[in-house]
């Protein structure tokens, strides 16, 4: 070992992430996030090359287990894996033996016995990835667990915003919409605060969790006021699939109070950055005009998503 270390210069090694899995932003340190962002810069350069592939993970096999629907996250993870030269297997719940009554641990252990090195998990139950990391012997990446966390989304949001407005320290960031059912909101709050930003949430009282103020997050129910305060806004979708009852009278009323349109944006007389994690419900939380405007960085977010996920898997792979 000493022989090998001898010819490795101090410039080319760095310390590892403090975690062995990516389960949520709350388990990361500021140093981890900075290291992920720095590595992302390099992968962003890689994916903009003519040949977008590097061989770093060529000896790893990664399983993507998606027990919930997904377009962006799934494709983004798979592209990231392929651009790192990893072997990839995909499993979605509808096509798996889960419907025959197999438990999550059994499913995963069966997959692991086929020599898979890393698991990317999306699951409808909050805490599923934390549970899995305690019960199976593999590296777990949380790609969204119920209403709990969606760490890669939060990292790519913070990274994209950082690229547009520089350091997030003391910046004001607003999250609008269905905070109660959103894992993106939870992870975003952790990430922005860790990077030193102030976070405010805006939405109908029924869709804002009661305990949110204990996270040092302020609440505003007037969208115009909230927009005037912020440097960047993250518009969230109403998660109808997680609602068993009605949280607001009608969609029309929601749109009138919390939908982002050109008129409100013009009225605040300030350039703010607009983000959306997707999928967009055009005409509900955001109008087409705004979603396609110069201020919206929705497609930048998607591009950065691949680079962020490459960086995360690269950094976690060196700990396997």
């Amino acid at each position, binding site marked *: 070992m000493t022989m090998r270390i001898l010819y490795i210069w101090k410039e080319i090694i760095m310390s*590892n992430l403090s975690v062995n899995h990516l389960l949520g932003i709350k388990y990361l340190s500021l140093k981890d996030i900075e290291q992920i962002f720095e590595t992302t810069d*390099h992968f962003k350069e*890689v994916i903009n090359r003519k040949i977008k592939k590097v061989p770093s993970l060529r000896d790893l096999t990664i399983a993507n287990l998606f027990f919930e629907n997904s377009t962006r996250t799934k494709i983004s993870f798979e592209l990231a894996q392929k651009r790192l030269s990893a072997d990839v297997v995909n499993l979605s719940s509808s096509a798996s033996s889960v419907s025959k009554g197999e438990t999550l641990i059994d499913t995963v252990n069966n997959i692991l016995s086929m020599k898979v090195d890393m698991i990317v998990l999306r699951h409808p139950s909050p805490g599923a990835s934390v549970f899995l990391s305690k019960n199976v012997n593999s590296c777990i990446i949380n790609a969204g667990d119920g209403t709990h966390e969606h760490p890669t989304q939060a990292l790519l949001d913070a990274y994209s915003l950082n690229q547009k407005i520089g350091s997030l320290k003391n910046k004001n960031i607003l999250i609008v919409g269905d905070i109660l059912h959103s894992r993106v909101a939870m992870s975003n709050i952790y990430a922005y605060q860790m990077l030193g930003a102030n976070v405010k949430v805006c939405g109908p009282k029924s869709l804002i969790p009661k305990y949110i103020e204990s996270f040092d997050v302020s609440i505003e129910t007037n969208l115009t006021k909230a927009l005037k305060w912020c440097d960047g806004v993250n518009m969230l979708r109403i998660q109808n699939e997680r609602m068993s009852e009605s949280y607001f009278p009608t969609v029309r009323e929601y749109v009138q109070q919390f939908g982002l349109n050109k008129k409100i944006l013009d009225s605040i007389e300030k350039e703010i950055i607009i983000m959306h994690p997707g999928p967009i419900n055009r005409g509900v939380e955001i109008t087409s005009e705004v979603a396609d405007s110069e201020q919206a960085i929705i497609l930048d977010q998607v591009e950065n998503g691949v680079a962020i996920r490459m960086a995360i898997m690269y950094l976690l792979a*060196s700990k396997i």
Partner: protein
Amino acid sequence: MPLKKILNAEQISSIISRLAFQLIEEHNDFSNTVILAIQPRGVLLAKRILEILIEQSYKVDLGVLDITFFRDDFRRNEKSLKANKTNINFSIENKTVVLVDDVLFTGRSIRAALDALQSYGRPISVQLLNLIDRRFSRELPIQPDYCGIQVDSRLNQKVVVKWMEDDDEDSVYLERNYNE
């Protein structure tokens, strides 16, 4: 650990001039040649060479190439490998590429660099320029085309190149009896 100085600033400067003039001799007006410095340690050497070429009124493209993601020792160390910037603003298609690095040791970095190059096109040929060639330590069949000096050293010794820009002196040291 005893250090032995094997090159001083004056010697380094004259070696770099010689290497630059060897390049001029081989590459005429550099219209079909580009220089790629290997991150991180080849960059300062390449800049010195470029300064001389510019003094001699040659115009030549210089890029920096990071090989981190192409290394063959990823996941074989305790620590992560840190990437550096790659910056190549020109095409290397049908060009002669001169790779520049400070020390040629096992040859593994150069193998990674040859791999990394493929992402940028198909060069007509690739050459290698090194300030130091540790000739008895090679693990792969790779040799320099332009070489500053050859150093005979054992595997457990260390060659340390210091540059004015980073370490306030131009010098090359051989670290002896490391860990013995």
